[in-house]
């Protein structure tokens, strides 16, 4: 079941104005750089982007914001981005902020056929407005619904021709749940190998969740907060 496509252009075919995209990554870590560059080239507009963060001004999803391609961001934290702030304050950009754990769980739920679940996160805050509240074990919880997307775009370290993925370190983050929740899931990987090369026991995202896979040409992997200690 070969899912390999030759380049980001082929991988992203079918993405149209107004669609909902999930984009993996936490900050600039584990983001699908090559696909984002292709989205910029495609000039698709009015996108709804579900992504934990919105990149920085000149990298990550910030690039889509620069081109005013995003109508709405669904995220948990959107700092580090001046253009974002400008568009948000001017009302050009709609923003839906969601607690990070609820965002992760809502993506997983979307992929897992769980339409809704109760969580304590956000109870008593403005996040809970309009949401059903129910007490379990003496503690109030709110009902949160599943998230899905027309396309999910994820980034993995290694992938095979059948779409099986392995992520590296904390570049895993939201990628596995988003891979589950996309109607069509596109994976860009640093290293693409033949099926049978990866240990079936070590697959993070089974190929069933991935429809298209390609090897990225180049990964800049920009570091957002370079913190180091000095050798004694």
């Amino acid at each position, binding site marked *: 079941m070969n899912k390999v496509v030759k380049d980001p252009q082929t991988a992203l075919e079918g993405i149209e104005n107004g669609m909902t995209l999930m984009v993996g990554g*936490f*900050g*600039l*870590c*584990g983001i699908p750089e090559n696909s984002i560059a292709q989205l910029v080239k495609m000039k698709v507009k009015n996108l709804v982007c579900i992504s*934990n963060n919105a990149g920085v001004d000149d990298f990550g999803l910030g690039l889509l914001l620069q081109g005013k391609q995003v109508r709405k961001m669904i*995220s*948990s*934290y*959107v*700092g580090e981005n001046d253009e974002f*702030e400008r568009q*948000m*304050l001017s009302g050009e950009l709609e*923003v839906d*902020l969601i*607690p*990070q*754990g*609820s*965002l*992760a*769980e809502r*993506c*997983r739920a979307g992929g897992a056929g769980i339409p809704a679940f109760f*969580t*304590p*996160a*956000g*109870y*008593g*805050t*403005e*996040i809970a407005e309009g949401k059903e509240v129910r007490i379990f074990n003496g503690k109030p919880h709110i009902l949160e619904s599943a998230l899905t997307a027309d396309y999910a775009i994820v980034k993995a*370290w290694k992938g095979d021709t059948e779409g099986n993925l392995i*992520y*590296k*370190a*904390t*570049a*895993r*983050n*939201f*990628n*596995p*749940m988003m891979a589950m929740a996309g109607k069509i899931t596109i994976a860009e990987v640093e290293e693409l190998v033949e099926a049978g090369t990866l240990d079936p026991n070590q697959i*993070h995202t089974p190929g069933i969740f991935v429809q298209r896979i390609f090897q990225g040409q180049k990964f800049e*992997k*920009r*570091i*957002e*907060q*370079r*913190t*180091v*200690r*000095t*050798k004694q």
Partner: protein
Amino acid sequence: MALDKNGIAKRIAQELKDGWYVNLGIGIPTLVANYIPQGIEVEFQSENGILGMGPFPFEGEEDPDLINAGKQTITVRHGASFFDSATSFAMIRGQHVQLTVLGAMEVSQNGDIANWKIPGKMVKGMGGAMDLVASAENIIVAMMHSNKAGQSKMLKECTLPLTGVGCVKKVVTELAVLEIKDGKFHLLERAPGVSVEEIIAKTEGEMVVADFVPEMKI
């Protein structure tokens, strides 16, 4: 004398117990990792998907694929593990993390916390804070007693949009250690040389003060 940020972190570190898994927020809480008491072992969880965080890397050894929730480059200790964000918050929501330390803009006497949004100002988002405060059994807030305008952050009721309700158990500021119970602040300790009167003056919420309030041992 009021504590500095490292002093606050040092005092909070005294709350750590052997075998605990701990989530540290950005800012003062991060510093807690530098003051783990001798003879105990704790493990740090970062909500972007890591258990067993180590110190910052040596220059030239930074790995862009290895960061903490503050997006800082880090390292891992022996026995670390990586996982996805859903599993990470399963740990948090499922109360597998024994202690959460985070900053706040306001705390109220019934344990409400506000730390994510100032109306009229740019909203950056709550990140994982709402999940953390709604879930943790044990939450310590690390913050300054007053804001930059000199107003108390220890309030009868929070004025800012809430992050969580009735969840904060303990607050450590540059002036004091306070417990929250029965809808009141309880003054447990004062910073070395800081008077009870100063703490009372700088605490807007109701505070229970015993006849004798010991000084912190830092």
